[in-house]
């Protein structure tokens, strides 16, 4: 009798302590365009986090967003789609959704409660007809203003400007001191960045939304918008002759070496400052906007998940979505990337001064606003960029520019 019980107990014991079936790691091929040194460190945090969660990260990095996205689309069309592909918080992937070529990650979004912590701008982009088609990765802000402490000292400017008028005053002082007041790289998208800065700080939230979100003709033809355009053009008086075509890094280099005073550029500029071993607050200043209610322009990266019915692929996609939006991964990634996390309920104590500033602003819902591209189609954004860039470089009557903007944003 006893022997039988002993045997049973032994069998049960053996069964209980038998090793669980080791699951094969979930392979995920990810297409992205994070190729520079700083970006590589950032994407490594995602790869490490994914690996720690039991996955296997297959990296397919392709420089330049436009290139990477078109390869992703071609791979989807050709039947060899990756597990995930990087896009932006824009309408770039809407056509792919329309064709039914993306998987959604509703399960993860609902379970993890994305509606609760994602900024509305981001939610409106990734949530299409009630389904969640992308996992947000980070939030960049393209319209920061960076100041060179050394240049400011030489020009006799004590503090960073706090209003648009103070900005112009500072620019005048820099000019008088023989420095380049506004460091600028004259490429189309950079001209557009300066325009966004002016529209956001001079035009204000209502005008911004009316122009980009509603594409309201009355708003575009209004005097307020005219004023924005004129202020934008006024800034052109403060750039140096060699600005057209210049890479943004070369403009930041002018700030770093103290040759120029101010640059309007996104928060990724911090990468160049770090490379030159400069510190925020000590060697350079960062201005998120003017006034207590200045807007935080949201321009983020997301991951989309090409359609597949293969259960292993779907499982990998869900795991990726979960890992990417996890608070710990968010801090690790954004710290290296120079952007801010997509959620404000994270421990930001280790992030740099400017990022902490950004995150604090982001907590205020009324200061969240999307980059132009998150409201308008890629083609409209491109046409607008052509108009703005031409206005920046040529003398065109402002009324014609207003008409051109209207034409660019039409359906």
């Amino acid at each position, binding site marked *: 009798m006893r022997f039988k019980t002993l045997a049973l107990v032994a069998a049960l014991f053996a069964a209980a302590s038998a090793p669980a079936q080791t699951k094969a790691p979930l392979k995920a091929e990810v297409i992205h365009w994070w190729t520079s040194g700083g970006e590589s460190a950032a994407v490594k945090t995602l790869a490490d986090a994914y690996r720690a969660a039991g996955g296997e990260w297959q990296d397919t990095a392709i420089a330049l967003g*436009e*290139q990477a*996205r*078109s390869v992703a*689309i071609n791979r989807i*069309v050709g039947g060899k789609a990756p597990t995930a592909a990087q896009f932006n918080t824009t309408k*770039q992937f809407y*056509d*792919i959704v329309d*064709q039914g070529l993306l998987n959604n990650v509703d399960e993860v979004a609902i379970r993890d409660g994305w509606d609760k912590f994602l900024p509305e701008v981001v939610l409106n982009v990734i949530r299409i007809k009630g389904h969640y088609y992308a996992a947000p990765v980070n939030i960049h802000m393209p319209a920061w203003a960076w100041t060179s402490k050394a240049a400011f000292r030489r020009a006799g400017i004590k503090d960073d400007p706090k209003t648009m008028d103070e900005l112009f005053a500072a620019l005048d002082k820099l000019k008088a001191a023989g420095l380049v007041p506004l460091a600028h790289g*004259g*490429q*189309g998208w950079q*001209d557009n960045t300066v325009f966004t800065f002016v529209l956001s700080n001079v035009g204000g939230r209502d005008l911004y939304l009316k122009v980009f979100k509603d594409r309201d003709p009355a708003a575009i033809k209004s005097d307020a918008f005219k004023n924005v355009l004129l202020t934008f053009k006024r800034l052109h008086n403060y750039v*140096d*002759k*060699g*600005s*057209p*075509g*210049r*890479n943004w890094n*070369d403009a930041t280099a002018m700030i770093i070496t103290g040759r120029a005073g101010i640059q309007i550029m996104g928060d990724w500029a911090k990468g160049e400052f770090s490379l030159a071993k400069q510190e925020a607050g000590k060697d350079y200043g960062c201005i998120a906007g003017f006034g207590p209610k200045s807007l935080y322009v949201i321009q983020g990266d997301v991951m989309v998940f090409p359609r597949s019915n293969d259960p292993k692929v779907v499982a990998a996609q869900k795991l990726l979505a979960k890992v990417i939006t996890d608070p710990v991964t968010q801090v690790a990634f954004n710290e290296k990337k120079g952007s801010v996390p997509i959620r404000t309920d994270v421990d930001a104590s280790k992030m740099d001064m400017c990022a902490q500033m950004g995150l604090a602003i982001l907590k205020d819902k009324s200061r969240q606003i999307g980059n132009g591209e998150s409201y308008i*189609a*890629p*083609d409209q*954004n*491109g*046409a607008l960029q*052509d108009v703005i*860039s*031409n206005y*920046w*470089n*040529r003398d065109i009557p402002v009324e014609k520019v207003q008409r051109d903007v209207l034409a660019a944003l039409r359906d």
Partner: protein
Amino acid sequence: MKALLRRVTPWTALLPLAITVLVGYFGAALWSLFISMTSSRTFPSTNFVGLEQYERLFDNERWQLALHNLAIYGLLFIVACMVIGFLLAVFIDQKVRGEGLLRVAFLYPYAMSFVATGLVWQWVLNPDSGLQNAMQHLGWKDFTFDWIIDQDMAIYTIVIASVWQASGLVMALMLAGLRSIDEEIWKAARLDGVPVWRVYLSIVLPMLGATLATVFVLLSTAVVKAFDVVIAMTQGGPGTASDLPAKFIMDHLFGRANLGLASAGAMVLLLTVLIIVAPLLYARSRRKEART
């Protein structure tokens, strides 16, 4: 049986050509034509809109400027490359020492990726960092060379960089042509007392007809397809001043997700080429028939 085989063999040898042309090029061109009449965005769609894309195209100021730039760029690039390439080939052919090294000095630009070399040209031509700055430092205070930031002159800087890149290849082609001309020609000309430069102009140049034709077509295709030089140097700027049609098409194909408009642009470009090149090709083929 043997006669039949003899008739058929050339055709079987041309099978790769036939398939590539009919399925590849002809098929792709037809497909592009179809797409240019739809409202395709990122993906092809069957929403037929007739000639609407073409209307949008010709209303577009940027496209008009691009076509204008193409004419300037095309003319200057082709003429400059052919003249410089020919001169380089002729001079190198003069039994100079270090020919191998010289040849590489002129050819290496062709070997390098334009992404980096275009940036170097941008730096060199930029008044702030490049030649103008250097010359002024050396003492020529009034020296200006700021074409690249000038709305009207920017396209000429694209010409400079492109000629730098392609002349070496033209030189190589011309050299191959020159080297296949009989040595006797020079001997005979010298006996007749004809000066060297006359030999080249009146005797050699006509004999290089086939090479010149090859070079001309090569350069023309490069002109029509030129876009990475624009991206590397000026990004189409300042504003859209140095835009070229191929870059316009590329922008709309990828970044702006407008397949319809991009295809319309490609079709217009093709039509322009057809109108210019077809008579030339026809004339040449007639002369070829006369050869028999």
